[in-house]
């Protein structure tokens, strides 16, 4: 049976914390803490920590972009210099390293920046994977807890939410 979503909206941070703690301690069948998503108007690292470590891979994209930018930049410049028809250099090197480092450096940064953004978009799973359960009050001041679980467990999860004064509980088929 496919899993379904439920979203509870809370007025403040403390109520959301208590709801997550109870969810974690409930050991419900067909429910994993990894399937819990917090939606909040500001970053709450302390709230996210309760859900366990969730890896961030953006830095790897940054590293790949920076290395790629630096190497591609230098290769392009050096190969262009090496391919000039006439090499009237007066004893100076065909590929002078110090001045080429400037453009290499700029491309190192450019690719690093672009790949960081791309990495972030990939981590956000764009353009798909947008949950239909969303409430515009999350972008104002409310905290949402989105849970994905077996349909049979959803009523129990909603019961746990209901014990912590949620403003609203939303299911995939309405409230």
């Amino acid at each position, binding site marked *: 049976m496919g899993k379904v979503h439920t979203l509870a909206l809370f007025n403040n941070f403390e109520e959301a914390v208590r709801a997550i703690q109870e969810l974690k301690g409930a050991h419900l069948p067909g429910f994993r803490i990894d399937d819990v*998503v*917090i*939606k*909040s*108007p*500001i*970053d*709450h*690292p302390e*709230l*996210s920590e309760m*859900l366990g470590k*969730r890896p*961030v891979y*953006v*830095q790897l994209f*940054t590293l790949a972009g920076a290395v790629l930018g630096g190497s591609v930049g230098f290769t*392009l*410049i050096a*190969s*262009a*210099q090496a*391919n*000039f028809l006439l090499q009237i250099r007066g004893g100076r090197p065909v590929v*002078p390293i110090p*001045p*080429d480092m*400037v*453009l290499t*450096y*700029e*491309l190192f*940064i*450019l690719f*690093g*920046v*672009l790949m*960081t*953004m791309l*990495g*972030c*978009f990939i*981590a*956000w799973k*764009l*353009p798909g*994977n*947008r*949950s239909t359960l*969303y409430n*515009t009050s*999350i*972008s*104002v*001041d409310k905290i949402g807890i*989105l849970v994905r679980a077996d349909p049979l467990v959803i009523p129990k999860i909603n019961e746990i939410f209901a014990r912590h004064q949620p403003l609203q509980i939303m299911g995939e088929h309405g409230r």
Partner: protein
Amino acid sequence: MIHTTDESDIEIERRFVPKAKDINEDIAWAQINKDVLRSMERPRLMYWVIFLASLALFSVGVYCEVYQYRNGLGAADLENPQVWGLYIATFIFWIGMSHSGTLLSAILHIMHADWRKPIYRFAEAMTTFSLMTAGLFVLVHLGRVWQFYYVVAYPNERWTWPNFNSPLVWDATAIGTYLTSSIVFLYFGMIPDLAICRDNAKGFRKKFYWFLSAGWQGTDRQWANFRVAYMTLACFLIPLAVSVHSIVASDFAVSQQPGWHITSFPPYFVAGALYSGCAAIITLFIILRYVFRFEAYMTMPILDKTCRLTFAIAMVWTYLNLIEYASAWYGNDEYAKQALIFRATGTYAPYWWAMNFLGSIVPFVLVFKSLRNHLPTMMVVSLLLNVGMWLERFMIITPTLAHGYYPWTWTGDWWPNWVQIGIVAGSFGWFSMLFMLFCKIFPAVSMYEVKEMVYHRFMASKARA
């Protein structure tokens, strides 16, 4: 809760926001959204006055550029040795202006200086639009603008051989990189706010913000990736900004022209850039505070901090300016010394003295707290500082080209004509127009960061209590 809709509400804010606090911690988050979104809907009448004045100024610039395009650079009175005129001086000015966004946004972000949060967004926008304006001068000064691609360093399928050792080639690449990175940084930092706009907009605007908000729902995974990416971008931006203005300085410093061949030029340019950028932030701070009714966010303590930062940078610039003079005076290079003497006593001497006065003496006004908290005074001072910084760039270009190695090339009586002045004025119109449009379409105050600021300060005061 603060709701600043008219003068009486502003008076309430003045009475209830304690002077020592950067922001009122009790302000409701919903009110933050409301105030910022309202600024995009209903600014004061002054907004339209500024916008139309900018448009008029921009039109003057377009007319002058068309005139120059049809008649050639001679119509702008540009010929040897005055080949750059006001164009490159103003180009450096706009590049310098762009450094403020990086300073306020990236450096202060890394240092966790949270007072930057209500004002960094417009500083970043200033960076982007300054760079776009600076880029125009690269085209304008060519005269034959359709040949702009010659400045781009790409390999020789055209059978032209770019000189990769030339700072002019570095310049085009560095500015392109900086512009791209600044746009990415500005856009990326705005995504959570664009989601707020999406949630509150209707019709076409909703679709527009929906597309730009990139599916943002404020999930913990989104925040975690966003934080890492934003910090990474900030770390990239800082060395990039320094490299851009160092490279611009290298355009001059690596030449043999007396007056330019100075080792301290790159740090001197970077300090000058930060200085003019900070002064411009003060100007725009005061304008936006009034035009968009941001009195509750752009508070006097934040202005006070910005002024103190500007004073510190002004002193760094003054020191490096003195170093430049000392290098010429004691450097055993008679030509460089004569170029300095020409600046101080020749045709352009009044502007040289004005630059020194405005750049090094006027900032001492910022030492006085009572003056720092007086908005009209700060408006005038910030404008004067930027006049001084524009004169600095003028003094780098025109007197130096007027007094080179060969006496028969000296042009002590050269003055820019109306075409150049019109294009420079047009650039200010172009910048202001873009900036005001940005503030109307996008949130000029970062809503989510102000919420974070309010939240963390509230929690800290609660913990203290």
